[in-house]
């Protein structure tokens, strides 16, 4: 027995197969974690990383069987404990932070009741003591109004706050081992920085050992002391974080690192005739009165897009980027403003657009799992737009389906499969091919890679990039990831709270001048460099914190590090244009370079 806090020897987990046999989904896993260190389990979906992490609690999904020479946490032998023994450990000595805090909290109970539950269940404290300890934790997790936040319900706090509250629930029993399962994957990049920092600090304060499950090497680089790289349920590589990240021994680790450090050679920007023009869009939800919707989401958003060019639309969740995509496609009619395709204005609502107009603008939905009808085969899915828009039937349609499958690099036999038989990446390719079947002139891609693994997502992006250049399709690329947009787009539109704060051409991406919000987004993307997180200064709420409700004023001002008191809280900001760069800010463009802002 080693003196490490957590020890796993020869772990194997198998599941029953329909044929009656058993298949190993995880095998030959061994690692140790010294007390107080963080071990990262890294791999793509299906690599077994969550399965391994859960086995440390003695839990496996139904029908799976855990076998190991040793699974030890502290003095407890997880592999030999019975159910009652495991139950006494879970939530007390070993706790778990799930990926989606929103799904892990019960919406009908207050946050406090749920956070202190582990203490009460294991009878470790009275309700009074438990609440005091919870409030201390809220404070150390940097939650706003720690004394009263517990009285709220889960829907009354933001996603990042909920994720931190989940950490409070996990840490309240001062566990020996904390398992974090992709805790920041669902968060916006700016929120992720804060959550990562507080997690790191809180775990160190409690003195817990941690297992961090993630697919994102850059995030792992910030928090992990040791890394285990997994592929198909086996260990590719393991070792101290610095060694794995800086001198990887395994080819697979190198390919993961390469996908993170993008070295995409960007061909020349495309500059053809203007294909799509979006002008002064005002849109939202609810009844439209006097040209204004009851709940406005977008105001005064516009851009132009050339044939074969790509524009990246970025922003945090709630910034209105998906709404913009829906407005262009006509799914959500704009209250005012116009969408002009080849110089001809389109009807705002898709019901009033001709079939030909609908064909010219195609939409690729974010989630290929729900965007493909499970009852249809790939062939049927692709054949429908061919029949609907082009009247292709029979052998002609089959030939075109084969061509489309070639175009998206899928074997032709796939035509007879249903979506349940496809992998995530294959589904997204079919989703894309269905849009291409219409021969679109404008392609709207809404977060098409956010549900995919890094390597798979990179391949899809590359494919879209090739297709739009070769077929001359103007592409609107919605994303929350600014590095993706930088690598694949000719233009950039930054949305904040429904307003366009920056519109930039490729040449400006690497330039010094940016809107303060764009800069925040860029700075929030984790770097592979291990000290990156510690260098990030916490976002400071400025003195202008209560401006949001006053229309016309800069909505970013409450979070802006360079907000000017007496100006930003009084006057609406002007659009400032210099060359191809337009910024909505009180600062002149040449004052927005990084050095000036700091000075």
């Amino acid at each position, binding site marked *: 027995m080693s003196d490490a806090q957590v020890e796993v020897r020869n772990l194997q987990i198998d599941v029953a197969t329909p044929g009656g046999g058993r298949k190993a989904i995880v095998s030959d896993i061994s690692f140790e974690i010294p007390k107080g260190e963080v071990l990262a389990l890294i791999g793509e979906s299906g690599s077994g990383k969550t399965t391994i992490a859960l086995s440390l609690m003695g839990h496996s999904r139904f029908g799976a069987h855990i076998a190991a020479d040793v699974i030890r946490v502290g003095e407890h032998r997880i592999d030999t404990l019975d159910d009652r023994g495991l139950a006494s450990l879970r939530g007390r000595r070993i706790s778990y932070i799930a990926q989606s805090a929103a799904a892990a909290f019960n919406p009908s109970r207050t946050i406090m009741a749920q956070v202190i539950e582990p203490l009460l269940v294991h009878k470790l404290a009275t309700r009074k003591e438990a609440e005091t300890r919870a409030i201390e934790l809220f404070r150390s997790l940097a939650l706003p109004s720690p004394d009263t936040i517990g009285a709220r319900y889960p829907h009354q706090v933001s996603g990042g706050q909920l994720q931190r509250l989940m950490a409070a629930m996990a840490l309240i029993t001062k566990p020996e081992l904390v398992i974090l399962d992709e805790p920041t994957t669902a968060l916006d990049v700016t929120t992720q920085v804060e959550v990562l920092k507080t997690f790191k600090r809180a775990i160190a304060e409690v003195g817990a050992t941690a297992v961090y499950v993630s697919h994102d090497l850059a995030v792992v680089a910030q928090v992990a002391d040791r890394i285990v790289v997994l592929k198909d349920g086996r260990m590719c590589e393991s070792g101290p974080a610095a060694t794995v990240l800086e001198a990887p021994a395994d080819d697979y680790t190198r390919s993961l690192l390469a996908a993170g450090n993008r070295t995409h050679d960007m061909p020349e920007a495309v500059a053809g005739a203007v294909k799509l023009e979006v002008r002064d869009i005002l849109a939202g939800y609810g009844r439209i009165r006097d040209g204004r919707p009851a709940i406005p989401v977008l105001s005064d958003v516009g851009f132009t897009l050339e044939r074969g060019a790509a524009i990246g639309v970025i922003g945090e969740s709630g910034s209105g980027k998906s709404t913009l995509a829906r407005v262009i496609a006509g799914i959500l009619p704009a209250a005012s403003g116009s969408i002009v395709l080849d110089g001809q204005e389109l009807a705002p609502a898709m019901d009033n657009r001709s079939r030909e107009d609908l064909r010219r603008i195609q939409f690729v939905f974010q989630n290929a799992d729900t965007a493909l009808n*499970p009852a249809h085969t790939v062939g049927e899915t692709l054949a*429908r737009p061919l029949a*609907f828009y082009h009247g292709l039937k029979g052998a002609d349609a089959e030939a075109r389906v084969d061509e489309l499958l070639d175009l998206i690099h899928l074997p032709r036999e796939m035509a007879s499969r249903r979506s349940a038989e496809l992998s995530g990446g294959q589904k997204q390719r079919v989703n894309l091919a*269905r849009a291409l079947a219409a021969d679109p002139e404008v392609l709207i891609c809404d977060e098409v890679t956010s549900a995919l693994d890094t390597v798979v997502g990179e391949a899809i992006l590359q494919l879209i990039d090739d297709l739009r250049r070769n077929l001359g399709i103007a592409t609107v690329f919605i994303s929350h990831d600014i590095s993706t947009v930088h690598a694949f787009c000719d233009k950039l539109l930054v949305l904040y709270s429904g307003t366009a704060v920056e519109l930039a051409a490729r040449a400006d991406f690497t330039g010094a001048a940016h809107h303060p919000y764009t800069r925040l987004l860029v700075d929030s993307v984790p770097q592979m460099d291990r000290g990156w997180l510690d260098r990030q200064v916490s976002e400071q709420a400025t003195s202008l914190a209560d401006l949001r409700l006053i229309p016309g004023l800069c909505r970013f001002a409450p979070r802006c590090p360079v907000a000017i008191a007496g100006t930003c809280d009084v006057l609406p900001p002007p659009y400032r244009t210099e060359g191809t760069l337009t910024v909505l800010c009180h600062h002149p463009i040449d004052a927005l370079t990084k050095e000036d802002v700091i000075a």
Partner: protein
Amino acid sequence: MISRIASGVRTMPLSGQIGFGLVVFWLLAAVFGPVVAPYSVGAFVDDEVFAGLSASFPLGTDYLGRDVLSRVLWGARYTVFIALAAAMLAVFIGTSFALLASLRGGWTDELISRAMDTLISIPSKIFALVLVAAFGSSLGLLLVITAITYVPGNFRIARALAMNLVALDFVQVARARGEGPVHLATREILPNMIHPLLADMGLRFVFIVLLLSGLSFLGLGVQPPHADLGSLVRENLTGLTEGALAIIVPAIAIATLTVGANLLIDALQKGGRS
């Protein structure tokens, strides 16, 4: 068509094959039963009531001394045809309205849903009484009454299923493509709810058998001397104490018919899922 059914049945689990066998047996009995029945349905053929097995009465006699085999064969015709047809009709009508309500939403949905609520609030037996009093009992009327009684229940289930599907992206995709409501309903939505709907139809079928026998008991259903399977059980209830075949045989008939139908539907459902 026949070869597709045959290959489908071959790949089914055993329970499904048993279900298929039972359903086919009762369908054949319903079609050909009255032709092969040894006696006329209302003929008093024996002095002894609740007689046991014999060469001339293979399944004994009932409480009035009529041949049980002949009555069950006739009864199967009523039960299978009315219950099956009514279940299918109820599911067809309920699901059509549900698809319309979910696709249109708003006022259309509100109007249809409240109309269905109104229908639920009328007790089925009173409803039947009024209609039978107005038009006189006939097979067609029984079919309509039993179908209408079970339309709202099916509508509720189908609407809930369809509402979940309408919100999914693939329906949005089809809408954004410009597809009309018929395509949306029959191609995009219906295929994804067909299996729970079939299961629902199996359940309705059993309920309709019960409702039919209830109506017959009140004299509103199949008119004597004819009787459906449920009525056969009811009219021979006095034979229960002596374990008369006259009550056991129609009970077994109902059981095998409903269990068979549900086994078959379950097997279809599992086949569709994998």
